[in-house]
């Protein structure tokens, strides 16, 4: 005859934490793969304009960024509120764009150089004057592939 016996007091058994590292590592790898490192700190305030016909930028390594917008609040005492150009990690002027493009070119491998693309991240309140000047400088530096950065919105 089988005998069933209660083995003392059985409460809730403790959840095994042995698989916890696995779960966390999985999350970790997910974030490592799906994200990119933040490369520059923004000194200018940029609210990108909206557009519905945007395309994704193909290869991140071929893209260099030019930021144009009004300086962030803590820099306004120094640089005013008018739109400024930021290249890499500092405020720059129009004349620096050519050097910037050539140094970006230099940093790329020779076979990639013709595919250099410039992404213009421009605040929507900026006036076109400075944008036109930047475009002219880019033409002089023969960096002709550009992309006007915009947020994707879907509207019909």
């Amino acid at each position, binding site marked *: 005859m089988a005998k069933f016996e209660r083995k003392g007091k059985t409460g809730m058994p403790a959840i095994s934490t042995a698989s916890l*590292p696995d779960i966390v590592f999985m999350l970790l790898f997910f974030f490592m793969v799906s*994200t990119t490192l*933040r490369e520059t700190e923004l000194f200018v305030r940029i609210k990108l304009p909206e557009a*519905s016909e945007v395309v994704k*930028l193909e290869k991140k390594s071929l893209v260099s960024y030019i930021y144009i917008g009004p300086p962030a609040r803590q820099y306004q005492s120094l640089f005013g509120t008018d739109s400024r150009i930021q290249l890499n990690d500092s405020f720059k002027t129009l004349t620096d764009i050519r050097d910037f493009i050539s140094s970006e070119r230099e940093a790329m491998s020779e076979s990639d150089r013709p595919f250099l693309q410039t992404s213009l991240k421009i605040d*929507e309140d900026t006036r076109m004057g400075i944008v036109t*000047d930047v475009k002219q400088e880019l*033409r002089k530096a*023969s960096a002709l592939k*550009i992309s006007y950065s915009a947020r994707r919105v879907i509207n019909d």
Partner: protein
Amino acid sequence: MADIAFLLLIFFLVTTTMNVDTGLARMLPPIADSNEKTTQDVKQRNIFTVLINKSDRLLVEGKPMDVSILREKAKEFIANPNNDPDLPEKEVKQIDYFGAYEVPKGVISLQNDRGTSYAMYMHVQNELVAAYNELRNELARSKFGKYYDDLLEDQQKAIQAIYQMRISEAEPKSVGGKK
């Protein structure tokens, strides 16, 4: 073990961004050589001039226009469905999948003032690109029964050859007024 992994996880969460960069891709024209004056003759009927002034108003083909109907007007100009003599000429070209096809030769010329706001400029650019994309989609639907994005690469090329995106951003002109 889990502690270290958590630490790494939080580090990556803080230092990384997830947003994909999107934008309107464009080719700038190469800088003109000042020594040689190249005058390209484009007939008036083949040009669709869009002017944006410093108070963000539009002047299209010499007439004021609201930005909401720009897309329709641009589509009408690019495709010229009724062979209107005021709209662009067509040139018969051999194109894969289509055979001899009348390809319209229109060019959109976009001009802006230094005082135009970037938001408006982008809005207009977006409408013009949308006009091309809608025409391409319509053609893809009628010819292949699919959306343009779902087509094979050489089918897309064929459609691109018919509706080639020609948006010229004009040389800057200084028009009066403060910037």
